[in-house]
Structures are given as structure tokens and as C-alpha cells.
């Protein structure tokens, strides 16, 4: 009952939007290069489903490898930075500045550094982009400890290592997942968009550009839908992982 009440409104809203879109395009006679009708996109999606699936797998694998690499590096870097206070004071502004740079712009340079059949550049871009939200959030979580927990562990005469293992690390988990949620969407975007700048052309990004270049707009949109679905799969998987790792959280998004 509650599930229905929670799920129904957004679905109804989505359906309504698609219907409105379809009506606007057909009634308003809008040219497909501006925006194609949902029915046309759907027809292309069905026709191209093997291509969308394969391209999605290629981009998804790049995003996944980048996400895992970036997240592991981000967590390790945060552990090191939180251990040495001066290091964290230096690294946070440094990371914030680096994060403000358009890292996707590195893609053409990375593409030239490796062979044209290499998947490494796209994975590197996805990894670098995933690194920052994980690093910044994990570091914040590691540094924010409830003062009462600190006093309690002090009263138990717990060593620094015990304190880190029993309090600091589990306490940082919600922050780690906040970072991972952001990183999972960003990694997909990075993996797709990195293909716009050359390199190996087997993912969703290259399909979108080539379809658009051939003025096959509904087909381009079909691959965009594929990219949306891929992003959604990554985001939902992260939510699921969060729920599995932190069973004590009754609500996921607070």
C-alpha cells in the first residue's frame, strides 16, 4: 500500500510528461532535429536494441572500472589524509581546486597518450572524476566524530587503532556512500562523454555523435535513452549496495 503510494505519483508524472511531449511534437509539427517524438525514439530503441545493449555494455564496463578505481583511490587517500592532519589541511583545498577543473577536457590529451584501440583513457577520465566526491566526503566523515563517542572510547581506555576501527571507520560509512552516489552518476557521464573526443569508438558516446552526424536524430536519442538507463542502473546499484552495507539505516535518502 505504502509502496504503491510512494511509487505511483512519480510514474504517473513520468507518463504524463511523455504524453505531453508526444502531443507537443505531433500537434506542433516540430522538426525531428529539434526534438523527435517519443514514439520515434522508442521505435529506434527497439530496432537498435542489440547495438544499444552492446554500446551500453562497453560504456558501462569503462564506467565501472573507472568508478571502482577512483573510489578505492579516493578512500585510501582520505584514510592517509585524515591520519596526518597537516596533509588533510593541504589536500582539501587542493582537491577542491582540482575538482573545479573540467576533467573531461583531459580526454583528448589522454587519448593521444594511448593507442587508438585502448580503453584506458576513458577509464582514466571516469576514475579521476569519481575520485573527488569519494575523497572529499570520506575525509569529512573520518574527521567528524561525535564528541560523546570520543569521550566514551577514552573512558574505555581504547587505543588509537581501536578507536579508528570501531568508531571512525564505521562512522564514516554514510559519508563514503554520499560520495559514491555522486561518483556513480559522474563516472557514467565521464565514460560516455569521453568518447566525444576520439579514442576507441565502441560505446554510447560515439554512437550518439555518429547518429547525430548522420542526422539520424531519433537514433541519437535512442542511444541517449540508453545512457540514461545506464546512469540509472549505476545509481540504483549504489543505493542497493548502501542498503546492504549499512542495514541500520532505515531510510536511504534523508
Amino acid at each position, binding site marked *: 500500500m505504502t509502496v504503491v503510494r510512494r511509487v505511483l505519483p512519480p510514474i504517473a508524472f513520468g507518463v504524463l510528461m511523455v504524453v505531453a511531449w508526444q502531443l507537443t511534437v505531433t500537434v506542433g509539427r516540430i522538426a525531428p532535429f529539434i526534438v523527435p517524438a517519443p514514439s520515434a525514439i522508442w521505435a529506434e530503441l527497439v530496432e537498435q536494441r542489440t547495438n544499444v545493449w552492446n554500446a551500453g555494455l562497453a560504456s558501462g564496463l569503462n564506467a565501472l572500472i573507472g568508478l571502482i578505481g577512483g573510489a578505492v583511490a579516493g578512500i585510501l587517500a582520505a584514510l592517509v589524509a585524515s591520519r596526518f592532519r597537516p596533509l588533510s589541511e593541504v589536500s582539501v583545498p587542493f582537491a577542491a581546486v582540482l575538482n573545479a577543473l573540467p576533467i573531461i577536457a583531459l580526454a583528448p590529451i589522454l587519448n593521444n597518450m594511448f593507442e587508438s584501440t585502448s580503453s584506458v583513457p576513458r577509464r582514466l577520465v571516469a576514475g579521476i572524476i569519481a575520485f573527488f566526491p569519494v575523497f572529499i566526503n570520506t575525509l569529512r566523515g573520518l574527521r567528524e566524530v561525535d564528541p*560523546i563517542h570520543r*569521550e566514551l572510547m577514552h*573512558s574505555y581506555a581504547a587505543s588509537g587503532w581501536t578507536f579508528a576501527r570501531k568508531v571512525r571507520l*564505521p562512522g564514516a560509512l554514510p559519508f563514503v556512500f554520499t560520495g559514491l552516489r555522486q561518483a556513480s552518476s559522474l563516472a557514467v557521464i565521464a565514460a560516455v562523454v569521453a568518447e566525444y573526443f576520439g579514442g576507441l569508438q565502441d560505446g554510447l558516446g560515439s554512437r550518439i555523435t555518429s547518429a547525430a552526424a548522420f542526422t539520424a536524430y531519433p537514433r541519437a536519442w535512442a542511444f541517449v535513452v540508453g545512457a540514461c538507463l545506464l546512469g540509472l542502473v549505476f545509481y540504483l546499484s549504489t543505493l542497493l549496495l548502501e542498503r546492504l552495507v549499512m542495514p*541500520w539505516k*532505515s531510510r536511504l535518502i534523508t
Partner: protein
Amino acid sequence: MSHRVDAAAPGPERTSPVRAAVSVDGVTKVFNPGRPDQVRALSNVDLTVAEGQFVTLIGPSGCGKSTLLRLIADLISPTMGTITVAGQPAAKARLRQEYGIAFQQSGLFEWRTVLRNVELPLELRGMSRADRKARAEEMLALVGLPDFADHYPAQLSGGMQQRVAIARALAVSPPLLLMDEPFGALDEMTRERLQTELLQICAQTATTTVFVTHSISEAVFLSNRVVVMSPRPGRITASIDVDLPTRDDAARQSPAFFDAITAVRRALRAAPAVAP
């Protein structure tokens, strides 16, 4: 019932035949010494708590009652003076887990189940898995929560969380229990129920308790002795012995209860006049 309103010289307790569970001698605590924001939190405080006694520290905000409790717990160290807990320096007593402590916030670890929260101090003592589980279950039964062992703290009400915190504080069977306004955030009904429970638990386990509160009725109902403190600088201005015939709900209506409340209130009002 005897009222003594000059605790500056708490002579009788020092010569008491019962061993002192806590003894505070000439303790002064200055925060941020030598800096512009220097604060003299406690000034020349003497306090002796006999074994098995329930002593409450009461006073307005900023009188240093929580500071005094943290000094006894060795969470902070005194600027001057000495503190002895169970016959040893406070720092050593802390390392040997001679006390359990509970705060206004339960301070439960949200990622641990109720049972594993209670187990934590035992775990840190290196007790075996089976032993600590048995002990934690026993403690949960003592505070009336045997059915909530596998719940997470977020699933419990504030009063239940506070009971878990008390169970955790008592898990290592410490001779001394330190409590800093543990019922301060609870509603009046829950508060009174937990007070009664706490007294039963303390009687069962023969624990000495130092309890911080700013509720006069709570102090009187719980304590053998109410220690009145006043601020700027924090010091003890009175020590009032309370002798209620019983410690149950009927006691809350007894003349002795109201007499003691009046005595504590007078002492609290008198305090600022004494201040320079």
C-alpha cells in the same frame, strides 16, 4: 535528616569508616590558562563519596558540575589538586575501567545492534565472544530490554536508548557509575520511571553513583546526599544529606521528600549571596 550548609570542610566523611569510592582534594580546573578566554571552571573543590553512596551534583548551568564529573572520569585533568577513584589516581582508574559512564545523549553507536553496543566495553576488555554475549544479555534484562537485543538504536525511543546506555555503563560491573544528566532529554513520565529503575539497579549491583542533574526533585529522589554547587568560579556551597524512608513512588509524596526539596532549593538560592 541533617542539613549541612558548609561543605567547605567536609570533615565527617573523611574520617568515615567506609572506604571512599571517590575522593577529590583541593581541585581547581582552569580552561585555556594564560589565554584571553581563560575560564576558572572549578575552584578548590573537596568532595568525598563513600562506597555505595548515591551522590548528586546540582547547580545552575556553568557551575562546573559536569566538569567535576569529567575530572573524576579522567576525561580531563585538574589544574591543581588530586583525584582518587577506588583508592588509585583517576588516570589509573580509567585505564582499569573502574567506572562506567553515561551522558545526556545516549551516545550509542548507530551501526551496532543494541546487544553489540552493550558488548563494546567488554569487547575492549578482551572478553570472549560467548561470555560477553551472555553478560550483555544479562544487562539488557536488568534494564528491561531483553527483547530488543537485535534492534538498532535508531529503532528505539529516547528512553529505551538511555536504558541501553545505562546497561552499557554497567556491563563491566564497575564499582562506580558516573552519570551526566542522563535523563535530561526525556519527558517527565519516562524520567520518573527510569529514576526508580536506576535506584533498583544500583541497589542490586551495590554501585557507587555520582549523578549530575539540574532537577531538584530528581536529585532529592535519587540521592543519599545532594551536593550543591554555584558558578563563577564553580565551587561546592552546600552538602545536604537526604534520608527518605523508602525510594518508591510513595516517597515522592512524603513530607521528608518535600523537606529535602526545600532544603536544596534554599541552598541553591543562598549560593549567589555567598559569592564575592
